[in-house]
């Protein structure tokens, strides 16, 4: 009767559960880290009261938000107002589905065939991430429009203009990596980054034919900051101008969903950057089975850079943002792509 319960199924279900819970716990850790890093940079203490050194602060925040009243403006579009946070958080979860976080593993001989550590092992994973990441803008735009509040609408409009502007550079840098690796699958791209250039430098795409790989990584990092609406590109929720931007009218768990989506998007962008440019789970000293430890270390470093940038740089002006995206980043990304294509053909890589 229970024949369908194979070790493969159990392992797969645990992987899905790990991704689901891991993203939530990761978001909670990021909320805590954000406040502690901000406190460190501004020479404050940050949260200290809830739990030892305030580590239970995110849980306290969530419990508080669950017990808050669910408000909705009278003039709001009820269906879209409810759908927007669900779209946001769902897009954030789906974008992580094709992203692997470790080498294929047999789980110490439990399985006959090694199983890759990811939810959806598709062969065009880079395209899927690109497509789903641009779905996230729907949640923000619908939230802004459905609220029928001036601040929300302006935040939604700004965010749509910003995200589609930087999506071009984002897509170009992804195409550059596809060109270098001749593959659209994360696992194939990561496997090509094993080993060393000249026996010293890791064979990561970021070091590929210096400085072409580095430029592609820089374009990806800047466009990723803008795609996730993080400082210095946080115009959709620029609090000094727009109160809270697109989620001004949201309260309770609906607000928490937007918050969760923002942090999961940061984790996804960093995980994709780790896989595409920083060698994924490859690293010295550890056997391949424990590659996920290297992956988590690289992820943590990138996420710290997110916080570091946010609390160090002031926000751009909106015209500077659009001018930078269209007049600087897009030409740089395009020229870099053509240079990489010429390099691939000239050296026959």
């Amino acid at each position: 009767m229970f024949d369908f319960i194979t070790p493969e199924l159990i392992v797969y279900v645990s992987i899905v559960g790990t991704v689901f819970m891991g993203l939530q716990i990761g978001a909670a850790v990021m909320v805590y880290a954000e406040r502690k890093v901000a406190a460190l940079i501004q020479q404050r203490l940050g949260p200290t009261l809830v739990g030892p050194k305030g580590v239970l602060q995110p849980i306290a925040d969530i419990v508080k938000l669950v017990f808050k009243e669910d408000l909705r403006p009278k003039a709001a579009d009820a269906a879209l107002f409810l759908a927007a946070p669900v779209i946001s958080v769902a897009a954030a979860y789906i974008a992580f589905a094709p992203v692997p976080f470790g080498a294929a593993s047999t789980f110490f001989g439990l399985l006959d065939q090694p199983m890759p550590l990811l939810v959806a092992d598709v062969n065009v994973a880079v395209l899927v991430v690109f497509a789903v990441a641009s779905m996230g803008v729907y949640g923000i735009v619908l939230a802004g429009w459905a609220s029928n509040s001036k601040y929300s609408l302006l935040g939604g409009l700004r965010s749509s203009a910003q995200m589609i502007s930087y999506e071009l550079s984002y897509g170009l840098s992804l195409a550059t990596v596809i060109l270098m690796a001749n593959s659209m699958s994360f696992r194939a791209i990561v496997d090509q980054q094993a080993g060393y250039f000249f026996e010293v430098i890791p064979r990561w795409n970021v070091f590929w034919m210096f400085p072409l790989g580095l430029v592609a990584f820089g374009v990806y990092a800047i466009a990723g900051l803008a795609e996730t609406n993080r400082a210095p590109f946080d115009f959709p929720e620029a609090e000094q101008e727009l109160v809270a931007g697109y989620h001004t009218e949201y309260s309770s768990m609906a607000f928490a969903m937007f918050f969760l989506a923002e942090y999961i998007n940061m984790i996804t962008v960093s995980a994709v950057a780790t896989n595409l440019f920083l060698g994924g789970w490859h690293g010295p000293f550890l056997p391949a089975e424990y590659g996920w430890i290297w992956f988590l270390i690289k992820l943590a470093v990138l996420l710290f850079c997110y916080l570091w940038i946010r609390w160090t740089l002031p926000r751009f002006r909106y015209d500077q943002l659009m001018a930078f995206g269209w007049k600087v980043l897009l030409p740089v990304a395009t020229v870099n792509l053509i240079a990489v294509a010429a390099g691939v053909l000239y050296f026959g890589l």
Partner: protein
Amino acid sequence: MGGWDGLAIMIAVGVGFGAVSIFISSFIGPRNPTPEKMAPYECGMPPVGDARERQSVKFYLIAMIFLLFDIEIAFLGPWAMSIRQLGWPGFVQIVVFFLILVVGYVYVWRKGVLDWGPEHDPDYVHAPSPGPAVIKRYRYGTRN
């Protein structure tokens, strides 16, 4: 298991989690609406008019040129996968493709679609630069 159906599982997980948590909190939370709470937030003032008014045409222009340039990205994916078979002829073709695109890009740039700041607006009049008396008052206050 683990292929495209993994994506479907993640869609179900994501939508389910979002919907369930909002549903639960609408049960647990209190519910005593007042007209003030139901009004859109406008810094404590009574809201004026409707939010859905006309917005700047810049947003529509950006959306339109995005469509044009995004098609370019859609072409690049398959090209990047097959560059090793296409060789130098494929490279020359994509360069020509980009050159045609650059013509439109330069046109859009010269037309000022990419400029959002007031200094690019021909109707914008800059405030006069402050004279020495104003600068002195700003620096040292009015008492000295």
